[in-house]
Each structure stands twice: as structure tokens, then as C-alpha cells.
């Protein structure tokens, strides 16, 4: 390791001083096991749960009337459903990046944020999956449209289609994320089982912990399997957004048919995901007083990842514009011209403001260390990434090769209700998660302390 520059600011430790095994265990498990939740937890939960009702209404209307309640039409046949699907899937990627890739790189600062980030991944994937399932209009039939299973009709999916690749990639991603998350939880569920006061708590956590007792032989198997799972998740997460980008890149439409899409989509996914981790964890560490576990160092590092991936995304925008001009193709050129000056010009320039200009603030350490400003930037990034998908999808579709088929698109009230409703589902699930499961990996925090379980407890 190189020594830091003499004028470099002091490094903030990943765990505040004065902690021992018992204090970490108590602090994290008490969030769940103490009877009362803070009032701000209820406020957050109520917001999420209210928005969730909009989702139920939108699904009801969709199933009752059909996809006509959405704003989609020709020429824009893919609207909010694919925009929001890509947005949510992208958000999920940061959780896997933090839990798997940073584990492989032995980045200790991932320890206190990986559990919550993985939960975020799961819930984001759940929200994302609602869109492709419900855009079929008749989701009870979706099984044989999407999944390969032997049926009496003898019909199978078309395996050369990126949409079927997407089914495989996203369902694998959801399953592996859930497995990875649950595996990481087992030792902590054992801790919860032993610390729970109520019979019901002991029974439920006990059943989920499956008899974990911390045996050295089990740890040996467990750690190997966990590391291999991380190694499997790493190419998986990169493949998922690559495949999502194939949904567009394999098509021949100007604005979609671009070889830069896979890396640029993956970077965008990590960018929006880290922003969402910041959006969730900055209020959370304040509600539960976790500033000594989710320190400014964590926020600083996450902001740096956001900045780097944001620059890659911005490079992607510039290259799209450059390719449009350099292709010398009439339709490619018109696509860029229409994007920047056409009827959706304000979407494009707001996107550049959100994803190109605002992240430049993260060059400054003072801003990276300021949770309030960082929270605001993370919201801006989330909006920017939604706009990115809107711009890519809608502005490419609404004016294609024949001017006679041009049209405009906007989301209907049920589109918005569905979209905001998935945010409600996401928030509801996340707030329930922090209420019933330890949101920081307790056993990994113990590892940060090294081998001395302190001494205060052991002495009496």
C-alpha cells in the first residue's frame, strides 16, 4: 500500500470507536427487537404504503380493462412499462455490486451497507418484474409466453430473441440475489434467535436460522460457498444489464442500434443503484443513529462510485450524439437532432443537467461529506436515470423512418399510478425489512473488530 499524500485528509475508519462484539450485536439487533419503532419509521412506512394503494388500483384497472388504460399506442408501443422496468433493474445492480464485487476486491467498507443494499436489490427486482409480467395484459398466461416448459401445444419460446434472454437473465438474477441474501442472513438469524425475547420471535428466527450454531466446520463450508456465490454474482450482474441493453441494441431502430449500449447501460445501472443506496441509507442512518456504522467514509466512497459511473454514462451520451453525426446516416442524424431539439427537447436537456452536470459537484470532498447535499444529488440522479430511459425509448420510437407514422407519447394516469405504486411497494418492503431483519450484517461487523471480543463482557 502506498502511503497517503502528506496533505491528504485523515481517513475516517469504517467503524466508529468504542465498539465491541456485544455493543455491535446489541445496537443492530435492538433496531428489530425493541418493541417500538421511531416515529420517523412510521412516517416513511405510511408514505410507502399509501403509494402502494396506487399500484393496486393501477393493476386492477389494467386487468379489468386491458393495456388500453396505458398511454401506449403506435408508434410508441413501449412506454412506461419498459422505462420503469429498466429503471428498477438498474437500481438493483448496486446491491450486487456492493455485496459481491466489493467482497471480491476485499473492500471492508462494504460491510455495513451490503445487507441493506442486497435487500434493495431484491425489492427493486420485484418492482421491475411487475412491469414485464403485467404488460402482457393477461399475466396468468405469461408463464407459457415467457418460460420454456413442455406443453400440449408443443410451443416453445424463441431463443434467438433478446426478450427471452431477458427472461432468463432477470429471473436468474432475482433468484441468485435472493439466495445470496438469505445465505448472508443465516448467521445473523441465529443471533436474532438467541436474542429474541418473545416466543414467536425465537421460533420464527430459529426456524429460519435452521440450527446455525457457528461451528468452525460450518463456517469453513459457508465462507467458501459465500465467496463462490459472490464470484458467480459478479458476471451475472454484468450480464443482466448487458442483456437488458440487447433488448434495444439488437433492434435496428436509430437510437437503439448502438454497440456502446452494453457498457453504457451497466455503468448507468450502477450509477442509479448507488444513488438509490444513498437515498435509502442517508435517512436510515439518521433515523436509527447509525452514524458510527454507516460513516461519512461510506458516503464518501459511494459518492465517488456515483461520480465515476456518472462520467461513464455522460461519455455514453456524448458518443451517442457523435455516432449520430458521424454515421452520415440520415435517420441516425435526425434521431439526435430530434432528441435535442424536437418536442421532447426539455427531457433531453434535463437529463444532461441531472446526469452530466450535477454529478460534477461530487468532485468536491466537502459535498461528498455532506449527507444533506448528497441526498439531494442522489434524488437528482434517480430522476436523471429515469429520464435517460424515457429519452432512449420514447424519442427513438416516436419519430421513425416515415413521417406519416410519427406521433407523440405520454403516460396516462394509470401509468403514473403504476409507477409511483411500485415506489410504494419498494418503500413498504424496505421499511418492513428494517423492522424484522438486521439491516447490517452483524457477523461481518464482528470480523471488522478482529479476534478480541472484548473484554468488558468477557470479564464478568
Amino acid at each position, binding site marked *: 500500500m502506498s502511503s497517503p499524500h502528506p496533505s491528504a485528509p485523515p481517513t475516517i475508519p469504517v467503524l466508529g470507536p468504542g465498539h465491541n462484539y*456485544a455493543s455491535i450485536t446489541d445496537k443492530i439487533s435492538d433496531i428489530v427487537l425493541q418493541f417500538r419503532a421511531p416515529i420517523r419509521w412510521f412516517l416513511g412506512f405510511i408514505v410507502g404504503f399509501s403509494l402502494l394503494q396506487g399500484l393496486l388500483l393501477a393493476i386492477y384497472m389494467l386487468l379489468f380493462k386491458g393495456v388500453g388504460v396505458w398511454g401506449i399506442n403506435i408508434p410508441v408501443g413501449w412506454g412506461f412499462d419498459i422505462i420503469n422496468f429498466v429503471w428498477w433493474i438498474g437500481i438493483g445492480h448496486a446491491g450486487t455490486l456492493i455485496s459481491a464485487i466489493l467482497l471480491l476486491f476485499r473492500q471492508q467498507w462494504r460491510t455495513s451497507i451490503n445487507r441493506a443494499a442486497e435487500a434493495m436489490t431484491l425489492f427493486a427486482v420485484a418492482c421491475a418484474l411487475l412491469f414485464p409480467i403485467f404488460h402482457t395484459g393477461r399475466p396468468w398466461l405469461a408463464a407459457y409466453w415467457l418460460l420454456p416448459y413442455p406443453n400440449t401445444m408443443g410451443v416453445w419460446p424463441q431463443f*434467438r430473441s433478446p426478450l427471452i434472454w431477458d427472461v432468463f437473465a432477470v429471473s436468474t438474477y432475482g433468484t441468485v440475489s435472493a439466495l445470496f441474501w438469505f445465505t448472508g442472513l443465516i448467521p445473523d438469524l441465529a443471533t436474532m434467535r438467541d436474542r429474541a425475547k418473545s416466543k414467536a420471535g425465537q421460533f420464527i428466527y430459529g426456524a429460519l436460522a435452521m*440450527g446455525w450454531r*457457528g*461451528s468452525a466446520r460450518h463456517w469453513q463450508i459457508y465462507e467458501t460457498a459465500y465467496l463462490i456465490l459472490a464470484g*458467480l454474482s459478479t458476471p451475472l450482474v454484468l450480464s443482466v444489464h448487458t442483456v437488458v441493453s440487447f433488448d434495444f441494441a439488437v433492434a435496428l431502430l436509430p437510437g437503439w442500434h448502438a454497440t456502446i449500449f452494453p457498457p453504457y447501460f451497466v455503468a448507468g445501472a450502477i450509477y442509479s443503484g448507488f444513488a438509490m443506496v444513498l437515498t435509502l441509507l442517508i435517512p436510515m442512518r439518521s433515523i436509527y443513529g447509525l452514524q458510527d456504522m454507516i460513516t461519512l467514509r461510506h458516503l464518501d466512497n459511494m459518492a465517488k462510485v456515483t461520480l465515476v459511473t456518472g462520467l461513464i454514462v455522460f461519455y455514453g451520451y456524448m458518443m451517442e450524439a457523435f455516432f449520430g453525426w458521424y454515421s452520415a446516416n440520415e435517420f441516425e442524424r435526425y434521431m439526435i437532432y430530434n432528441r435535442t431539439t424536437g418536442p421532447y427537447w426539455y427531457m433531453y436537456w434535463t437529463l444532461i443537467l441531472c446526469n452530466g452536470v450535477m454529478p460534477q459537484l461530487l468532485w468536491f470532498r466537502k459535498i461528498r461529506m455532506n449527507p444533506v447535499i448528497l441526498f439531494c444529488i442522489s434524488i437528482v440522479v434517480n430522476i436523471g436515470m429515469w429520464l435517460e430511459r424515457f429519452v432512449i425509448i420514447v424519442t427513438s420510437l416516436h419519430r421513425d423512418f416515415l413521417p406519416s407514422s410519427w406521433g407523440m407519447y405520454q403516460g396516462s394516469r394509470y401509468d403514473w399510478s403504476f409507477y409511483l405504486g411500485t415506489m410504494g411497494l419498494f418503500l413498504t418492503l424496505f421499511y418492513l425489512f428494517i423492522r424484522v431483519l438486521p439491516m447490517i450484517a452483524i457477523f461481518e461487523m464482528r470480523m471488522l473488530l478482529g*479476534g*478480541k471480543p472484548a473484554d468488558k463482557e*468477557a470479564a464478568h
Partner: protein
Amino acid sequence: MADDTHLYGLMAEFTSSDALVSAAERVHQEGYTRIDALTPMPVHGLAEAMGYDDRRIQKMILAGGLTGAAFGLGLQLHVNLIGWNLNLGGVYLSGYPLNIGGRPLVSLPAFIVPAFETTILFAAITAVVGTLALCGFPQPYHPVFNVKRFRERGAVDGLFLCVEAEDPKFDAARTRDLLQGLGARGVYDVEP
């Protein structure tokens, strides 16, 4: 020896993971074979100190991944190549070859993605199911939980070493002396 019959074993508590590792190593060198250490977090070198070197999970995951790759590729080849009707007792396994613009029925570059995903999926499921199976989970009962001290501290900060009475070298008095001599801060009986 009559005293041993109602015991599952003896459990000693240590105050640092270094002490636990050296104690485990020592007990292993003394010739004990049925020993286990119980810690609230992984302690590197601990299983190795007791002579445990379990590498089955790696092989299981590899086998799972290869099975997944074969399944994913096999599924796509089957669907695209088997044109006749295959009815196995009510399960229809006929394929559905699609000629898309004259592209080959076996379009391997396009088949990479689903085959890759099933590889990862099968490997990951094997990793989790295999870990649970090798650990013997779910396990509703285990005698170590009869030790009150372990129930209280085992999942917080207690570092324990357990010697089973089944061990051929086990002798309640002598094993207790050995554990205490290794610097244990307490030695507890484990009821079966």
C-alpha cells in the same frame, strides 16, 4: 467413566480467537478427533487447526454449474432440432424449430445467453442447497444449546471449543483439566 454416559461432551470458553485457535490446535494434537469450535463469526485457520479441510462444496458447485450449462444448451438444441412429436406419458417433449429469416436452427451465438444464465442459476442453487446439506441443516436440535452460557453468548461474543464424549480419548476429568490448562475462562458440561 460412569459420569460420562449422560454427557454429550465438554465445552470450554476462550476470551480471544488466538487463544481459541491455539487451544483447538493443541486438543487436535493430543489426538482428539470429535471436536468442534463454535464462534459468532468466522475465524480463519480455526477449522484447519482442528484438521478439518472440507473441499466438497467447491466440487459440488462446479458440478452444478456444468449441469446448468448442459441443461441450458441442451434445452435450446432440443427445442430447435426435435421436430417430431414426443409424448412421454402425457408429457409432451416435442420441439418447435423456428426458421427465422433462414438463420441456422442451431444459432450458437444467440444460445450463449440462456446457457450462461442457467449455468449461474444451477451453480448458485447448488452452492446454497449444498451448504445446507453439508452442514446438516435444517437441524432442529443440537446438544450445544443446552449450555446456558452458549445460548447467552454464543451468538454475541462467546468463543467456544467443544469436545464430544463420543471421542475415544474422552475422559471427563482429564479432558476438563486439559481444557482448563489451555486458558479457558470456563468449562461447561454439555447435556445430550
